[in-house]
């Protein structure tokens, strides 16, 4: 039977209501911008991943940006590091270096750096935690409550906005913030505060598809991290690690939203690793995937870091190693099948997720160049693994105040575990906020160093047995923030040898540094602080070279890009989030730090470059 739609099949009362007109505001196109001469250094289009650190010095410096850009596809994503005019993917490239080869803004001229535009999202709840993407002159940024803004990256003028309809159910445990979008195939992808993935038309902001990952009312979980596009798939992690929930990673067909695979982070009965869980504890064992993973195109491996087991602090109902929590998993990106895993913390009772970024580095280890991955963990340690096999290559600390273990042995074993006793108050460092927050470090191939913050803070943990209630918080205890015994809580940003962890320099800060770092070929490391100061350090020495007050604290990820030969550095400004709240327990004045949600873009004055 053929019939016209709109007559027989009408709108049903329960249908999802969209009001396209109200949701999407199209702003007329921006005028042509004058072109200036191209002076930024654009390396060859080859992915940086394949270059050893030693080879980078010989990179040919071409000076051409494509005039008519091809659509972002897997080829462009795989070579994103070779497109410094753009910031195509969450970490800037699959290598997750958070490094820009642009050097127009550099040590010598940074004192001239000026704000060019600011854009206010108007949605300050939870601060602005995203990494903006920049694709061929357009910036895409998401705010809390899943609003997406497309901006002219040269002027800050809004091209369109998308407002995700306010959901009926919001899992309260994990916040309403959003850490970024992905762009490919003409679409902009975002995970939502009620555990959906949406795909928007890149040119108009109109919704093209939307899929529910799992019912948020039931799982108590949601998505705050940026999706990752690998080949024809959009891959997304999930929160839920502090709830009675079983974690997973999902892949959807990037064009249609059709589900392609799910990797459960906790093996089901009959699967290898299942016996690392006691009884039924696997059903509610956490293992979230709440920070974006990455991909090695050459090895064709997808890497993701898995969060803590639940209940976070009470482990006696989940005896065993609790695979694959606190692990790095390497998956076949086409099928989601596990290729290898490495568990950093078997049977975690401290809430020390391995969730953070996975940085792909080719490094000389014991006289041999190895394809490695580097992963900082909430525990305050950084792990170095062989990224082909998962072999343990080393681990080193980011923080001094650490008493949860005595150290890590030569084959990766945890020495002297200090497990908080049930029913007692135990002093543990680092605090639940982590020896580092999720915000990402940066790697500079110019110095060969990894730049990361370290948070020196502690807590008193009181462990309590808890019955799991599906989708409800499942911490198994409580904590209260404490200053370390050695002195007031504080933080630092340091440069490290990625293999040995040897500290090259250290920049001290009174408050927790909770924003990502950006390293550039201009010899700079950018980041921002809780009080709203955005600043640049000399990548070689850690000396502060420049700063600007954006008005609200920094929790997001700074990026760099170029338009018509002019380099920009853009940073989200907007204090908020779970850790921002926790800081008030140690620094009461932090309760008065203003929230915000804006993007500030900086450049050298026109003509001076």
């Amino acid at each position, binding site marked *: *039977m053929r019939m016209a*739609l*709109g007559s*027989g*099949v*009408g*709108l*049903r009362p329960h249908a*999802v*209501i*969209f009001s*396209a007109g109200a949701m999407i505001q199209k702003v007329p196109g921006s005028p042509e911008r004058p072109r200036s001469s191209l002076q930024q250094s654009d390396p060859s289009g080859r992915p940086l991943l394949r270059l050893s650190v030693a080879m980078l010095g010989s990179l040919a410096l071409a000076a051409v940006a494509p005039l008519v850009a091809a659509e972002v596809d897997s080829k462009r994503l795989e070579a994103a590091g070779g497109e410094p005019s753009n910031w195509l993917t969450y970490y800037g490239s699959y290598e997750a270096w958070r490094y820009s080869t642009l050097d127009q803004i550099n040590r010598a001229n940074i004192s001239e750096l000026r704000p060019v535009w600011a854009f206010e999202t108007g949605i300050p*709840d*939870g601060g602005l935690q995203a990494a903006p993407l920049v694709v061929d002159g357009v910036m895409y940024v998401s705010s809390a409550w899943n609003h997406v803004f497309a901006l002219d990256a040269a002027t800050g003028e809004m091209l369109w906005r998308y407002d995700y309809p306010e959901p*009926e*159910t*919001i*899992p*309260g*445990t994990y916040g*309403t913030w959003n850490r970024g979008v992905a762009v490919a195939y003409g679409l902009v992808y975002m995970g939502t505060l009620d555990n959906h993935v949406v795909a928007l038309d890149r040119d108009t902001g109109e*919704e*093209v*598809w*939307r*899929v*529910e*990952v*799992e*019912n948020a*009312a*039931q*799982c*108590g979980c949601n998505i705050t991290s940026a999706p990752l596009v690998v080949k024809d798939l959009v891959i997304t992690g999930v929160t839920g690690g*502090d709830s009675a929930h*079983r974690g997973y990673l999902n892949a*959807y067909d990037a064009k249609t*939203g*059709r*589900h392609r695979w*799910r990797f459960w982070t906790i093996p*089901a009965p009959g699967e290898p690793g299942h016996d690392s869980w006691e009884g039924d504890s696997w059903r509610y064992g956490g293992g979230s995937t709440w920070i974006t993973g990455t991909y090695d195109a050459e090895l064709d491996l997808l890497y993701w870091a898995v969060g803590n087991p639940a209940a976070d602090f009470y482990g006696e109902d989940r005896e065993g190693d609790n695979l694959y929590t606190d692990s790095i998993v390497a998956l076949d990106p086409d099928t989601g099948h596990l290729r290898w895993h490495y568990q950093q913390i078997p049977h975690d009772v401290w809430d020390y997720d391995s969730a953070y970024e996975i940085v792909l580095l080719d490094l000389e280890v014991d006289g041999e160049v190895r394809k490695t991955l580097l992963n900082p963990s909430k525990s305050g340690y950084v792990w170095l693994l062989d990224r082909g096999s998962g072999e343990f290559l080393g681990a080193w600390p980011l923080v001094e105040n650490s008493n949860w273990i005595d150290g890590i042995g030569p084959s990766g074993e945890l020495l002297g575990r200090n497990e908080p006793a049930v029913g007692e108050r135990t002093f543990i460092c680092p605090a*639940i906020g982590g020896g580092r927050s999720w915000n990402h470090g940066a790697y500079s191939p110019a110095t060969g160093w990894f730049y990361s913050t370290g948070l020196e803070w502690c807590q008193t943990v009181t462990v309590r047995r808890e019955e799991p*209630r*599906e*989708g*409800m*918080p499942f*911490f198994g205890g*409580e*904590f*209260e923030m404490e200053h370390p015994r050695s002195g007031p809580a504080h933080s630092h940003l340091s440069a490290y040898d990625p293999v040995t962890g040897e500290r090259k320099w250290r920049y001290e800060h009174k408050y927790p540094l909770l924003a990502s770092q950006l390293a550039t070929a201009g010899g700079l490391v950018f980041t921002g602080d809780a009080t709203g100061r955005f600043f640049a350090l000399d990548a070689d020495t850690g000396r502060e070279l420049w700063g600007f007050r954006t008005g609200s604290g920094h929790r997001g990820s700074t990026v760099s890009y170029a338009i018509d030969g002019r380099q920009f550095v853009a940073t989200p400004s907007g204090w908020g*989030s*779970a*850790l921002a*709240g*926790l800081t*008030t*327990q140690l620094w009461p004045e932090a*309760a008065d730090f203003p929230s915000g949600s804006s993007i500030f873009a900086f450049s050298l004055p026109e003509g001076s470059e």
Partner: protein
Amino acid sequence: MIRATAGLLLVSSAWLNAEAIDVSDPGLIADGAKHFAQSCAVGYCHGSEGAAARGPALRSRAWDPHDLFRITAEGLPGTSMPGWRGVIPDTAIWAVTAYVLSLSTDPPSGPDAMITTGLAEEPTAPRTLSADAVRGRDLFFDLTRQRRCGVCHRIGALGTAIGPNLALAARSRSAEDLSLDILDPNRSIAFGFEQVELRLRSGETVRGVLAEETEVWIRVHDSAAVPPPLRSVRKADILDQAVVERSGMPDDLDDTYSPGEVAQIVAYLREVAGEGS
């Protein structure tokens, strides 16, 4: 709003069904402390003893008891503070209120601590399902099965309403009919849930239950995958459209559920329908 299935709730503070309560009662405060630790202090919310985390500090402040109760029960719209009514019993919300008041700058005492709660009635008895139906409900919403019924059907606060309301559908149907509907969905197609097939200019064909139609768009729950993505198709991109007499529900759910399990799901649907209202 956070919601949980009623069956999972701990119904405590049962002795508290009085119209007036004493919020300085140490037993009530201790009960509230337990609820607070499990649901409010947790992780990144209000912190241990209300010391502040992502949510604001609750201790060492001045509160009006009724305001405190109302905010806890109803949440704060537009923020991540959920309403707890329906998640924990109102009696437990009063216990939490008493606990937070005990941490305040000026904890109520003596006659000031006698608060009218408005909770004169006995809380409604929790719905009692047979053992089979309880099992059926767990299967219906079993998160370990990716093709569970709850992916497309909503009952109460849980699940997603892509397919019809089964509490209504089950009311007029025998157990046999229901299990046939589950195992052979093409047998009959619920009114208003017909699938449309859209042939697009791109060469793609999209089939799904219609969700919405506007001047410009047609949105369908694409039945080529579970969960069905909501696809937005521009009318201008459609070559051809038709209603197809195939169900949007998968016809191979016997891969997901055994016959015994389907029977338990049917028992659940019939008991939910029987509850009526």
